[in-house]
């Protein structure tokens, strides 16, 4: 009997204008011990499946037909207390943000023991069981006495993995379990999940936007778009020989880890809003499909095939969708230019830990680095490797405790006042979490021209510049009057980028610019940066979690480990022939 079976699962959102389908009668099964990956670019529909399993749909959504059964028992009809008995025991969940899932003010040990207690472990065995559970995921016993925010994201997620598997569940629903993690931690967490899962014979439903990640650990893949499963089949077969244009374009939008750097495929427009989906006849992917034909608009293609099924009437044309060209080489530069940024023996310490046990650790030490004008450099490393601090030092948001920082040949570590001006003219930074990085009450056109507000330019000048910048970012001019909260995530990042580039800096520092974006949005932003590079001629220091993105965009890569640069070289060399353990760990965790 299947562990989880969805038959005609239909979920609708009730809106003022009527009901809008979110899931349109999807079917899938998860067999015992199997891993099914649900992949969708924005993850909207796939995440709803996860919520439906927990019977906790977001407000406004309701399951209208179909069935969702767990080991033959219908989840829809199950009384609430029986459901509660199931969750956490038979069905376990892994959340995308581990830190938020743990209680911030209770020690990890207390939370783990409380969970074990609920599972029926006797009081005097609690401690031993908790230690054993942690050992099962490779976390030291000392962690038990700590509060979640004193741990790394990786440790928090491992603790949650230990909790999830403590009750020997039949099914684990994991929603983006590695979204908050760096590549090396991703590898270790996934390995821990897989080891426990295999040992206990548990099945898993993995909800993710990352097709390659899903491919690396799933037995079967279901690719969703617009509330439908458009392709489902054995993972290897779906990845190697996709039969739906959507799957194929997702794959082509993902930068490869080796070989040439092809131009990334750009899906023509962002996923249509729920509303636009309501009354479309024929194939709902047609507006974005590169190989659509007239007759695609007439009938809705059924999900067809044997083991590997796809909802496309022209699967034969899918292999013809290919990348058009290659990424152009970096612009030619004369040798011997003054570096735009030079760090000499830079060090800085930070204090961490609880108030009663403050520890001063050297966050970065003895960093020497030169970036020539126009050079694109990526910094990769594990959480806490010091890359973000390095970016803030380069941007002038932190002052070094030791060493010198030179911007375009001027030493900025001596005189703070002139240093600030030098910084503003030479370096700008793009921050992660674009939402908080944009002033929430300011219109987009005012945000992108903030640099002009410093000089108190006239509003007409600002308006004109705002239009230029929006056009350069490939955004519709109408968005100028919006507030950041009214934009999509990818658009917010463009606005942040536009604000930084408004004064045409010589160096752009970007921390986490690509984190948390799905493949099409990422491809779009990568293409944009490569185009802007040729037009505006700036250098880039990019702190990045995704190694493939780093390689696609930057010719040079730095690997940081425990506050020091341990590898520095051409991207292909560093990733092709890694020498340091840290690099090897990062590569091992990247599913490419």
């Amino acid at each position: 009997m299947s562990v989880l079976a969805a038959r005609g699962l239909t979920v609708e959102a009730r809106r003022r204008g009527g009901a809008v389908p979110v899931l349109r009668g999807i079917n899938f099964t998860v067999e015992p011990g199997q891993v099914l990956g649900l992949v969708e670019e924005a993850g909207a529909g796939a995440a709803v499946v996860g919520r439906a399993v927990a019977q906790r749909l977001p407000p406004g959504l309701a399951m209208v037909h179909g069935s969702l059964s767990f080991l033959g028992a219908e989840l829809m009809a199950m009384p609430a207390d029986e459901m509660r008995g199931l969750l956490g025991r038979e069905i376990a969940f892994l959340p995308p943000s581990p830190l938020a899932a743990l209680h911030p003010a209770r020690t990890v040990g207390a939370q783990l023991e409380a969970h074990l207690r609920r599972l029926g472990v006797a009081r005097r065995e609690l401690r031993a069981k908790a230690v054993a559970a942690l050992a099962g995921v490779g976390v030291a016993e000392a962690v038990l006495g700590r509060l979640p925010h004193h741990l790394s994201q990786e440790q928090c997620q491992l603790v949650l993995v230990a909790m999830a598997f403590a009750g020997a569940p039949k099914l684990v629903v994991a929603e983006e379990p590695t979204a908050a993690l760096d590549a090396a931690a991703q590898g270790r967490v996934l390995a821990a999940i897989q080891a426990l899962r295999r040992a206990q014979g548990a099945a898993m439903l993995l909800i993710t936007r990352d097709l390659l990640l899903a491919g690396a650990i799933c037995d079967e893949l279901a690719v969703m778009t617009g509330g439908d499963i458009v392709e489902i089949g054995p993972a290897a077969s779906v990845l190697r020989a996709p039969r739906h244009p959507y799957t194929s374009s997702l794959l082509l939008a993902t930068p490869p880890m080796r070989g040439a750097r092809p131009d990334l495929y750009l899906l023509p427009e962002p996923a249509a809003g729920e509303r636009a989906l309501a009354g479309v006849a024929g194939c709902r992917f047609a507006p974005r499909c590169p190989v659509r034909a007239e007759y695609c608009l007439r009938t809705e293609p059924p999900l067809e095939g044997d083991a590997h099924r796809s909802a496309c009437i022209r699967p034969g044309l899918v292999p013809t969708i290919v990348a058009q060209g290659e990424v152009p080489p970096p612009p030619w530069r004369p040798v011997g230019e003054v570096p735009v940024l030079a760090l000499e023996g830079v060090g800085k310490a930070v204090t961490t830990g609880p108030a009663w046990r403050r520890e001063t650790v050297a966050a970065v030490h003895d960093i020497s680095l030169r970036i020539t004008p126009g050079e694109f450099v990526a910094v990769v490393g594990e959480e806490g490797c010091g890359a973000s601090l390095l970016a803030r030092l380069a941007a002038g948001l932190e002052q070094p405790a030791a060493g010198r920082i030179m911007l375009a040949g001027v030493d900025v570590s001596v005189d703070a006042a002139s240093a600030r001006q030098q910084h503003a003219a030479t370096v700008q930074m793009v921050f992660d979490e674009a939402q908080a990085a944009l002033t929430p009450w300011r219109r987009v056109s005012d945000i992108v021209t903030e640099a002009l507000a410093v000089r108190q330019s006239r509003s007409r000048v600002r308006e004109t510049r705002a239009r230029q910048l929006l056009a350069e970012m490939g955004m519709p001019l109408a968005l100028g009057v919006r507030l950041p909260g009214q934009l999509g995530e990818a658009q917010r990042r463009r606005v942040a980028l536009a604000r930084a580039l408004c004064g045409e800096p010589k160096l752009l520092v970007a921390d986490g610019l690509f984190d948390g974006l799905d493949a099409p949005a990422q491809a779009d932003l990568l293409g944009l940066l490569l185009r802007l590079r040729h037009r505006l001629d700036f250098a880039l220091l990019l702190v990045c979690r995704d190694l493939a993105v780093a390689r696609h965009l930057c010719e040079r890569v730095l690997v940081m480990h425990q506050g020091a640069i341990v590898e520095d070289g051409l991207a292909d060399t560093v990733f092709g022939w890694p020498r340091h353990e840290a690099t090897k760990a990062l590569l091992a965790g990247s599913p490419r």
Partner: protein
Amino acid sequence: MMRFLRRYLWPRWVRSGRVLLGLLSVLAVLAIAVVAPVLAPHDPLAQDLSLTLRPIELRGVYPLGTDGLGRCVLSRLMFGARAAVLVALPAALGALLLGGGLGLAAGWLGGRVERAVGWLAAAWVAFPPVVLALLLVAGGSGVAMAAMLSAWPLFCRVLRAELQAVAGRGHVAAALMLGFPRGQVLWREVVPAVLPAALALLAWVAAGAVGLEAVLAFLDLGGAPDRLSWGRMLADGWEVVFLAPINLVAPGVVLFSVMAGLALLGDGLRGTMGLALPEARLADDAMAGDGP
């Protein structure tokens, strides 16, 4: 700033029942305080010893009756609003300026200033506010001053905490990077973000000041014994509660509703201010409307 208010704060205020109710009661008290001389049927101090402790006669000469000295209860209530406003307004605004200013300066400048302000605020709140106010009033300061001096650490601490949460955000760092002077960054990026908390606190502190004034007047502290105030009316009404209960009930009800109104306003503001747009739906519109 106006644009900021309109765009960022306004939309959800108007839809929140709590805010409307609170605003209504506050505006009513303000209006009555201003026009009391016109509106009041009698001189609130005029005694008519032949007509003491009249009961309620809505159509009569004394609509809410008279007190033990034959003074019109309704007129006294109206003039009492003035006392309340004259205490609450300066106390709340003064506490906002003093405490908010110190709190923001501490959070923004850091270092020694922060430590000094932190100590001062901590030492200050070591006294319970009412005891502090009693001491101050006994020492000869006005009631409004006493209320302000007991409330400023609240503003100081809350605004400093809010500032610390905001200061770490990207848009603040971005403004610094673009070369805005630090003072301007505070004004442009931080102050608007902490304003909701400040306004909510303003309402709460005003409620506290009204209450404090009543307590002090009830205890006959700080100010003339025959002043016009709801607290004084309560004290007077207390003595004649069995003969003419309206003398106790009327000021009690008014006092309660004004304080509750202010507290509701504060709660409502705290809950509804902030980015007021339904994000997902608008994002959908953006995609549907602007796609090629």
